[in-house]
Structures are given as C-alpha cells and as structure tokens.
C-alpha cells in the first residue's frame, strides 16, 4: 500500500513514545549512569569511565556464563526448530473438533506462567516424587538434577523443548495453512516425492514464519531466567547459570551495580545486534514473498 506523507502522524505515535520512553529510556539512562561510576556506599558515586566494561569483558565468570548461554541456545534451537516443523507437518489440516483440540493442547504450555513451568519440571524430574525422575531411577540411571550437572542440563533442555516447541509448531502450522491446495495437487500430478513437496513447496512458504520463530526462540532463550531459576537456581555449582541468572545475582544479590550495569548494556546490545540481522533478513524475505 502506498502511504501518504503526513508529519502529523507523529501525534498518533506520541502516546506510545511517551510510555516507552518512560519505561525504557529512563531506566536505560540509569543503567548507563551506573556503568561508568563506582561507589563506596552512601549514594556517593565517582566516575570510572569504561573500567567496568573492561572488567566484564575480561572476567572469567562472564565468559563462562556466555559460553553456557550460547551452548544452551544452540542446543534448543537445533532441537526445537526441526521438531516444531516436523510436528506442524502432522497437525490435522481440516477445521473441526480434532484440529481445535490439537491446537488448544499444543498451545497450552505457552500460557503457563514461567515459574510454574519450572515447578512442573522440578516436581516431574525429582527421583522421589516425580514420574520422570522415578522412571529414570528405576531404569538404573543415575539421575539427580540438583547434584549432577549433566542431569541438570538434560532437564533444563527438555523443559525448554516442552515449553517452547509449540511456538514453532503454531507458527509453521499457520504458514502451512496458507498454502493453496492446488500446490499439493500439482505436486501429485508431477509425481513429486514427499521430500520434494517439503523442499520445494512447504519450506519456501514457511520460510518467513520460520525466520520469526528462530528470531523469537533465539531472543527468548538468550534471556531465559525464570525456569532455570526455579528448577536449579543456576546450579549445581554454576552449571546452569545463564546470563540473566548471573546478572540478577550480580545486581540484586550482590548489589554490584557498576559491573552489573556494564554487563546489562553489553548483553542488550549483543541481542539487539543479532536481532537486527534477523530483522533485516526477515524484511527482505517479506519483500520477496509478496
């Protein structure tokens, strides 16, 4: 659609601008402020320049948290995206009772408060009272997510897959719904194989939503806080201390405002940078699609 040039439109955007400025810019300024100062208490601050940034950049603790985070995000993307596509391909296509039921059940994990998701898996995975933990233990597997870091990782990953694969499923499902029947009919007539149908019809049509799915999963998994906080509290040791958990520990637990602020800014900018690349890719593919 061709848009008309109208500078007065700014007035319509103004409420959003004021609101977001109030809840984004002011806090961000606080963060920036802290990130370049140090304090000995009593609300007395002095200028330290970029020291905090340097410290964070060279801190072993941050490197470890970052590599754990990157590893976690990579693993869940590698599982959730293919699994989500796979499940979406098998969702019932026709409207009706079964497809509604599937839709509601599949979407359910997305609307459970994140701490409850943590609680559910905390309970489910316990050796004494949880179905999963109990079953694994009775199979003779040494499984205790509070003491064994492999078990902790396994539980957190399966929890994230449980929690978020449905988002990928729903997105891909919507993308698949928009493919006209004629494409499938033409493929039948051309004797295209199942793989060719996927490769040349379905995949190109869900490319757009798939990019969104990857972007969202990347962003959200990179910020994951509540679920591992409830499940393992970042442990055992620091085995599941991801960036957000570490940040909250630093800022609210230890009240190391300077390093925490510097850390926050770099964290935010990092996510923003990756997201910008995705966003550009997405806008470009949207332009091609139409």
């Amino acid at each position, binding site marked *: 659609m061709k848009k008309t040039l109208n500078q007065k439109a700014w007035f319509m955007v103004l409420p959003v601008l004021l609101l977001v400025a109030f809840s984004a810019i002011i806090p961000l300024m606080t963060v920036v402020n802290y990130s370049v100062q140090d304090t000995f208490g009593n609300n007395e601050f002095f200028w330290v320049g970029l020291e905090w940034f340097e410290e964070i950049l060279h801190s072993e603790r941050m490197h470890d948290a970052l590599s754990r985070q990157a590893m976690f995000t990579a693993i869940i993307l590698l599982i959730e995206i293919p699994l989500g596509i796979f499940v979406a391909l098998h969702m019932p296509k026709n409207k009706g009772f079964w497809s509604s039921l599937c839709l509601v059940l599949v979407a359910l994990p997305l609307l459970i408060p994140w701490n409850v998701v943590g609680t559910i*898996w905390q*309970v489910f995975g316990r050796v004494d*009272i949880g179905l999963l933990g109990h079953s694994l233990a009775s199979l003779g597997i040494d499984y205790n997510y509070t003491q064994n870091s492999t078990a902790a990782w396994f539980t957190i990953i399966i929890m994230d897959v449980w929690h978020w694969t449905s988002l990928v499923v729903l997105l891909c499902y919507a993308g698949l719904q928009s493919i006209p029947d004629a494409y499938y009919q033409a493929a039948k007539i051309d004797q295209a194989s199942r793989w060719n149908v996927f490769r040349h019809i379905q995949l190109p049509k869900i490319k757009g939503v798939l990019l969104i799915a990857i972007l969202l999963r990347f962003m959200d998994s990179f910020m994951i806080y509540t679920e591992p906080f409830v499940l393992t509290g970042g442990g055992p040791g620091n085995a599941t201390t991801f960036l957000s958990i570490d940040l909250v520990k630093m800022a609210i637990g230890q009240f190391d405002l300077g390093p925490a602020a510097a850390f926050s800014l770099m964290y935010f900018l990092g996510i923003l940078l990756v997201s910008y690349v995705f966003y550009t890719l997405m806008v470009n593919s949207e332009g091609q699609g139409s």
Partner: protein
Amino acid sequence: MKINKSACVMVLYILFLMLPIYWLINMSFKTNQDILNSFSLWPNNFTFDNYIVIFTDPSWYKGYLNSITYVVMNTLISLAVALPAAYAFSRYSFMGDKHLFFWLLSNRMAPPAVFALPFFQLYSSVGLFDTHIAVALAHTLFNVPLAVWILEGFMRGVPKEIDETAYIDGYGFFGFFRKIFMPLIASGIGVAAFFCFMFSWVELLLSRTLTSVDAKSIAATMTRTASASGLDWGLLAAAGVLTIIPGALVIYFVRNHIAKGFALGRV
C-alpha cells in the same frame, strides 16, 4: 496409512506435553504425606484440601486477584496506546518512521533482567513500588511494541479506500475509527490482546521485583511461600494448576484467530 502416521505423531507429541501437566494435577489432589511417602500414578486418597487452602487463605487467593488486576490493566493500556500508533505506521509515512518502528521493536528484545533493578529504583522513587500499576506499566515495555507490530500487520490488510469512503460519507476521524475501522480489525485486536495477556500473565522476574505485599503476584507468592514454609508439594501443585486454567480458557476462545494472527507473520 498417512492419516495414521500423522495421528501417531500428534498423539506422541501431545502425550509429551500433557504428561508433566497431568503429574501436577495428580499431585494437587494428594496430601503432602501421600506425595512423599507413596509413589502412585493417581491419587490414592483423593482430596480437595489443597484447593480449599488456596481459596480460603487470603495470602494465596489475593495473589491471583493481584495478577489478574495488573494483567488486565496492562492489556488495556497497551491496546489504548498501540491502536493509534499502529494506525499511523500503517497509513502514513513520516520523518523517522522506519527507525522508530525498529526502535519500538527492539524493546521487545530487551532482557527483563536488564531492567529489573532500574525499574525497581524508578518506581520506588515515584512512589509506585508495590502497586498494580507499576507492574502493568513495566510490562507495557514489552507488550506495546508487540501490540503495535501485530496491529500494524492487520491494519495494513484493510484497504485505504475504506478510510476515504468513510470520510466522504461524513464520518469524523473518531467516529470512523470506532464504528468502522475497529470492527474490521477485531480479530487483530483479539490477537494483540491475547499476546499482551499471555506475556503479562507468565512473567515472573519483573512482577516479583516490583511488588512486596499489596500487589504481590501469584507467581511471586508461589516462589516465596515455597521457600519460606518448607515445601508443601500438594499446595504448590494446586496453585500451579490454578494458574494454568486462565491460559487454557484464553486459548480456547481465541483458537480460531490465532492461526490467522500467526499467518500474518506477526507474533
């Protein structure tokens, strides 16, 4: 043959999704002793005690009321400011519109953990700490960009000629917006409201940081009670089950719009 394979995949996947939830429900109908002493696939001594505790103890049920209060406030505020903005983005071009749009979106990408402390200080300094509005406003940071994005997608689908026809027919801007435009994008508003509700309902970190007593959310109640009084698993499970219900209801009502909203590629 093909139908069977699809059904198998769906059954397995849904089983995977439902088992942990079933386990939670199972436990919510047991007493704490039962849970700790005997492992069983269903409640042996079926009891409503956990639910009765939650519905009679104000420190529990107030948590639900508080959560619902700030979720509804947040949804209303988000939609109220997002509607005109989305209209502007979908209809007009103006100085800096593209940058503004991305900047708005970028807020959706901000880790809540980054904002936890500054929010705490900001709302404390203006005297809003431990109020519903504080949580509602904090959540708008994530929901408004999302709502603008979703609504803009739906509005772009409404041809501009409709606006022009309405003006020719003598509608003023507000009359047109309320009587003609809003009904046309009703499902878009529904989807946007759904996502606002969803995010605000599931979020823990900010709502826990910004409240202490009067506006304490159910999520915060759950995490705090759990650590304070030793773990009463049955009670915790019942509280968890009750938080799933509003979400399930919301999904049920918007199930047909969701696919459409997703199809527009706007989440």
